């Protein structure tokens, strides 16, 4: 074999390795964006471990997010840049359930390395009886099936996150009965538990007189980071804020940015989105009103759009309906400011009532019943709101610019492959 072949072979291998590294890095970035608190049981955990150094450097450089990777798991502290989003909490959680989650974690912090559901419930009761909580009207007794179900729901969250691991037992039995056998035994994964709280500063470290009082103060107390007092430091902070939103949120509208951020964004959006897209395998959609990083695989999201199923279909139809209004020529003409267009909930319900006649037979049975369009409309609006495609205001529902991408385009008619081949053969190409 000649030496020339040798070098070519090895450079191929080198290239292949680099390509593999790059792909593994991308997979790891995407996995961490979806599962910021990752246990070793996660499919991509080995990739994350292998790419640990590069990942740590990348997240810290691009978004200022600390990333901890250990044998027992990985934690990306995805501190949010934007604190007003009301749709990014834990799924199916309400205020009360968050309180229970916190109390459960407080109990687990003090527990031994194993705990049972029953014992956790008892500790939780003690914590729930604290005067501050009761004075604010919080009461939890575990007396009813409903309350036991709440505890179990919190437990399931902890199981899902990986804070608890079930050794034996069954939560459903605990909900149904109060017998001795109706219990479950868990291992407490302390590392995961320690990674649960992402606050920059622990809420208990405030002295009583300095403690934040209002919600806004509390929010900033949780996420405010030190910013170096220099031009460079402020620029970096600005860049991190934008990158955090681009990586985490569906879209950034320019009009939501303050003057300083807007200036930076307009100048840097090309280079910035290119860097982020390269590492996360997303595609940048640059538009006049803003920037969205979109995902081809539909996997980098908790609310997919478009997607399959009745709810998603209804959402898509509503999106088209709203987008259609934005695209109407008169809307554009009248529209030095097309954002003025607003819809009432009734209009959307009425639209869905009509849509049901045409599409209802493909929908699930419960959605076809009389009056179901009200619920469907609610779901659709909520999904669109989550994706920052509409805003629910006091006057009604206002579609946001990016909803236009879901508008119905002109039907594109392609020649079927056979016909095209035939036409080429005859020499009458589509000239």
């Amino acid at each position, binding site marked *: 074999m000649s030496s020339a072949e040798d070098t070519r072979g090895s450079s191929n291998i080198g290239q292949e390795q680099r390509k593999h590294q790059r792909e593994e890095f991308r997979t790891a970035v995407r996995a961490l964006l979806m599962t910021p608190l990752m246990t070793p049981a996660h499919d991509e955990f080995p990739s994350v471990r292998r790419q640990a150094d590069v990942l740590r450097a990348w997240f810290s450089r691009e978004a200022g997010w600390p990333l901890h990777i250990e044998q027992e798991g990985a934690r990306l502290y995805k501190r949010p840049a934007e604190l007003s989003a009301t749709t990014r909490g834990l799924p199916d959680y309400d205020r009360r359930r968050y309180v229970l989650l916190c109390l459960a974690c407080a109990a687990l912090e003090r527990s031994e390395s194993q705990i049972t559901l029953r014992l956790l419930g008892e500790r939780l009761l003690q914590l729930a009886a604290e005067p501050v909580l009761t004075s604010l009207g919080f009461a939890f007794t575990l007396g009813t099936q409903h309350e036991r179900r709440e505890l179990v729901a919190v437990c399931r969250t902890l199981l899902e996150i990986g804070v608890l691991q079930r050794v034996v037992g069954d939560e459903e039995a605990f909900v149904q009965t109060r017998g001795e056998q109706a219990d479950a035994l868990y291992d407490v994964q302390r590392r995961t538990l320690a990674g649960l709280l992402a606050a920059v500063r622990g809420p208990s470290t405030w002295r009583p007189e300095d403690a934040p009082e209002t919600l806004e103060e509390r929010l900033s107390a*949780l996420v405010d980071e030190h910013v170096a007092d220099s031009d460079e430091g402020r620029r970096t902070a600005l860049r991190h804020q934008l990158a955090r939103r681009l990586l985490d949120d569906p879209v950034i509208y320019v009009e939501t940015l303050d003057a300083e951020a807007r200036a930076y964004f307009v100048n840097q959006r090309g280079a910035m989105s290119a860097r982020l897209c390269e590492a996360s395998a997303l595609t940048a959609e640059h538009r006049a009103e803003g920037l969205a990083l979109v995902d081809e695989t539909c996997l980098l999201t908790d609310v997919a759009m478009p997607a399959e199923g009745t709810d998603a279909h209804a959402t898509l139809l509503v999106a088209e309906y709203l987008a259609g209004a934005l695209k109407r020529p008169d809307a554009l003409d009248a529209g030095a400011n097309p954002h003025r267009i607003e819809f009432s909930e009734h209009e959307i319900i009425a639209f869905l009532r009509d849509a049901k006649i045409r599409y209802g037979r493909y929908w699930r049975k419960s959605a076809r019943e009389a009056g179901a369009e009200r619920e469907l409309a609610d779901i659709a609006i909520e999904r669109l709101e989550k994706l920052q495609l509409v805003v629910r205001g006091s006057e009604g529902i206002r579609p946001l610019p990016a909803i*236009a991408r879901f508008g119905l385009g002109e039907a594109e008619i392609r020649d079927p492959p056979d016909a095209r081949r035939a036409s080429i053969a005859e020499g009458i190409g589509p000239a």
Partner: protein
Amino acid sequence: MRSVSESADLFRHVSADKSEFYRRIMDVFAAAKRQYRLQLRPDEVLAEAEWSGAPPRIEEVNVALTQLTVWGNLESHPDTARVSSLSDFYRARFLYRLSQGGEAVEAALTLFVQTLQRRAELQTVALEDIANRLRALQTLAGEREPDVAKVHETLRDLVRVFEGLAENAQAFMAGVARSIELQQAESSAVSTYKRQLIDYLERFIGDLVRRSDTIAGHILALDPRIDVLLQQVAAREARDAAPGNETDRVEAQTSHWNAWRERWKGLHGWFFRSGHEPSQAELLRARARSAIPQLLGAIAALNERRSGRSDRSADFRILANWFVACQNDGEAHRLARAAFALNPARHFALNMDADADLPASTRWADAPPLKIHPRLREYGEATPRGPMARIRDRAEARARLARELAEEFLQVEAARRRLATGHSIRLSDLGELDGHAFGLFLGLLGEALTEQTHPEAAVSRQTGDGLLHIDLTPLAAETRAEISTPHGIFSGRDHLITITPTQDLR
């Protein structure tokens, strides 16, 4: 003497409603006892007690004193001192002092508190003392006429030191097992304690190993003479006991002697194994050694617990308060995102051909919309619904294949029977071969010829599959063999060939 149930009254003030109040009063009496003052007046009690808040009225003190007298903690006597006012004279006046039972209760409570507060510790000095006393004892025992008083003193000392050691060791073992002290400790305290404990255990284990042998040696050396010594000591002690007749004295002496022998046995058991039981010293050593990993475990748990800069449990409790204070679920979600940051990324999906060449100033409304699969657009399903594709039945094809295989096997078998006769035959005599037989023949020939080192050499080998044995001997160079086959005529130098099935050779 009071019975147990009666003496229970003595403890009632500890659990009574105003136990705090009662305890402060009793503390005054205990202090007075330490100062050798026999009795106190109510106003003295009022003045001397350390009240937590404002001092109570004298009437309250009087009521409490009467109650304590009823329970038996105090004894009262009419106060006969002169008074200077009528009201004082008509008021029932008493002096109070601790009763015998009350005194016992005070002593018991003091001991109780001390025991609860005692830190588990191991004494290294004790070992040294024990060794010294034993050496002294040995010297004394070696004398012709042992000084009983000195022996007695040494033994008493030994017992005292040893009891201290044993008690501390017990507390230590229990303490380590519970590791209570570490559970609630502050982190700075823990790190100090950790350093101290490890230093301490190291020193103690070292000492224990070094001194155990010496001590054991002393005990062994004393063993033959100790009985005599103990007897003398017991006799000396019996002399101190209350006078009585001769039998009483002998009895007392025996009981003292037995007590001493028991103590000696205990000491013995500490440093020597009895039967299969390891000695106490060994147990203690093992326990002390295991204390270090236990301590490290406890510290690890503490570290995990506070693996932030703050106490995580307190953090979560405060956070719970913040959540309760939220006005609605939306606010709770905002707080949750800031606190936990567990939310997955959220992006629009599906844009197969992003219009990269579109200028960035295009409005969304003017940009071409997303291309959505018509099926998804129409039905809300990307994949068609309908019956599953039928599973094809391949039984017939499989049967055909089996038939073909069987037939081929038969033909190969026939070919093998034709060639593998076990008899020598010239190639030129083989005559005509059919396709299968020729294939087999070529295979065998190929295998045999690869073995051949030289055109003139004879070959003998087993085929690769181990089924046949083949011998091939070349004939004269000018000979020639021809075999006709369906594919044509095979020709070459003639050979003598013998093909034998391997099984026939055995």
